């Protein structure tokens, strides 16, 4: 893989690196263990960041106060996880970029989050369904990461795992209740499930980077998370009286930096201040 475009083009990358003592350090070589690790960590960090961002969009607009507060807790957990994953990614890269530099100064093609988490919030049912489909994958992923050969990763996964166990408990329960609630809530939840289904497959698709990370025992192979996800999802959907879509089609590309149109707008909002005032300290 060639050095990523933003590394070459971001005008302040050099200044940032200089400030943190990483000046002159070459970009990580594609295929190297550190480059793989950096990629794997940005996949985790970016996914947490983008979902945290999406969930935070609800703040002040949720259907009832108790939910408004609960969603903010979840967004806060995800932002906290972002700081850890991207902080470690920056450390591994060794070019002086910290979590903020990675979050606010990369362009879309360098973001490696799942397409699922950049889906717009839609109605509250869509948001909850997206959360459930994600949490049902996120928890077993973190459980597997607790056994990583990289102790730093295992430590982060252990902390995040406790938070995400609660997220899953919450989102699964709400999906069940709303699926088996009123006719309208059932219809909305089924609609959300159908709309998001095509974005779930990407969670289980591995590429060469994933394969090397799995061989080194650093991160689990994506395919290995499928069975437990299927089990959780089938059980919850059954209780929710919702029908699992038959399609196996999967949208993909997010993990490799090919995103939907929504991503650019999200980043435009999120990164605006850092981009407009690159010299500022906040």
């Amino acid at each position, binding site marked *: 893989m060639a050095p990523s475009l933003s590394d070459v083009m971001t005008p302040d990358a050099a200044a940032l690196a200089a400030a943190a003592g990483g000046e002159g350090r070459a970009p990580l070589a594609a295929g190297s263990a550190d480059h793989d690790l950096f990629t794997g960590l940005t996949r985790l960090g970016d996914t947490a*960041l983008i979902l945290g*961002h999406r969930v*935070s*969009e609800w*703040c*002040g*607009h*949720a*259907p*009832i*106060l*108790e*939910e*408004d*507060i609960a969603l*903010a*807790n979840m*967004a*806060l957990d995800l*932002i*906290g996880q*972002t*700081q850890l994953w*991207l902080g470690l990614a920056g450390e591994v890269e060794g070019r002086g970029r910290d*979590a*903020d530099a990675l*979050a*606010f100064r990369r362009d879309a093609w360098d973001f490696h989050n799942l397409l699922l988490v950049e889906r717009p919030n839609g*109605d*509250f*049912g869509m948001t909850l369904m997206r959360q459930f489909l994600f949490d049902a994958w996120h928890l077993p992923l973190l459980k597997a990461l607790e056994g990583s050969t990289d102790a730093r990763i295992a430590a982060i996964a252990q902390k995040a795992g406790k938070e995400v166990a609660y997220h899953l408990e919450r989102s699964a329960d*709400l999906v*069940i*209740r*709303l699926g*088996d*609630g*009123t006719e*309208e*809530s*059932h219809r*909305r939840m089924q609609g959300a499930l159908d709309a998001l289904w095509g974005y779930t497959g990407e969670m289980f698709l591995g590429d060469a980077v994933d394969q090397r990370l799995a061989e080194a025992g650093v991160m689990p192979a994506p395919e290995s998370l499928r069975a437990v996800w299927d089990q959780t999802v089938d059980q919850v959907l059954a209780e929710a009286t919702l029908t699992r879509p038959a399609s196996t089609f999967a949208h993909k590309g997010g993990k490799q930096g090919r995103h939907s149109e929504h991503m650019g707008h999200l980043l435009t*909002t*999120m990164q*605006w*201040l*850092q981009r407009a*005032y690159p*010299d*500022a*300290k*906040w």
Partner: protein
Amino acid sequence: MYAQMVKSEASTDDPALLAAFQARIDAGEKIEPKEWMPEAYRKTLIRQIGQHAHSEIVGQLPEGNWITRAPTLERKAILLAKVQDEAGHGLYLYCAAETLGVSRDDLTEQLLSGRMKYSSIFNYPTLTWADIGAVGWLVDGAAIMNQVPLQRTSFGPYSRAMIRICKEESFHQRQGYDLMRAMATGTAEQKAMAQDALNRFWYPSLMMFGPSDKDSIHSTQSMAWRIKINTNDELRQKFVDQTVPQAQYLGLTIPDENLKWNEEKQGWDFSEPDWSEFYEVLKGNGPCNTDRMEARQRAWRDGEWFREGLMAHARKSAARRVAAE
């Protein structure tokens, strides 16, 4: 303040009961929900606590406006936690009001139909990131002036809610000032944003305390009931005296040519805000009244299916449990 211009009701109760009630308040006793209280006390409190709660909820919007644009992950988390606290504070206050025999849904309907008000300050826009600092520093600073004494208010549930709120709120003003300081000591552009935010929020913050009420009968009654502890002018003066040195430390200028230290009163002389603007904002003519109300109405309306769905499920499960027994 978060509850502005709350009109008190005239009492129509038995004078002997009223006198005994007043004696309890004068003795510093707390009035609890199921105890006898004048109808006027109850109604005035519902209005005041309800307005306070509404202010917390609508107050989420101007700050929430910047959550998705916060410039660092830490600032994003801090702001999110703070706006979440506002929701919590609204919730505590609604619960306090509910002990007086009104439901939260009732209060919400009254807010959304415009029959109940919220603080005028939240009808001003947050235009730059520095505004988030100004809101924390000035708006929360002004609110705290009022809320700290209200911890000693006569109505038990209100007092307990205020104690909890004050405890949680201590970080709000500090984070605002900290943000303002980062801006005021930053680049020329950041400093300009900080000054601009102070310019726009100074007078609306002074308005939060409400017009002078030293001759108001409502205020006299509320103070006798200890649901209002200080006059608006007292609190305003205290706020100005506290804020001026803080602004000086930041190297920012308070937008008031008449601001002058008064040796005799050991406080600052300052210009009154434009009260005609205040009344226009209350009437609905502030820069953001329409947007704020629409946002709350949309959230409530769009959430109806969700609230009903969960209620329907709870009824179904309860019925299933009964059937299984």
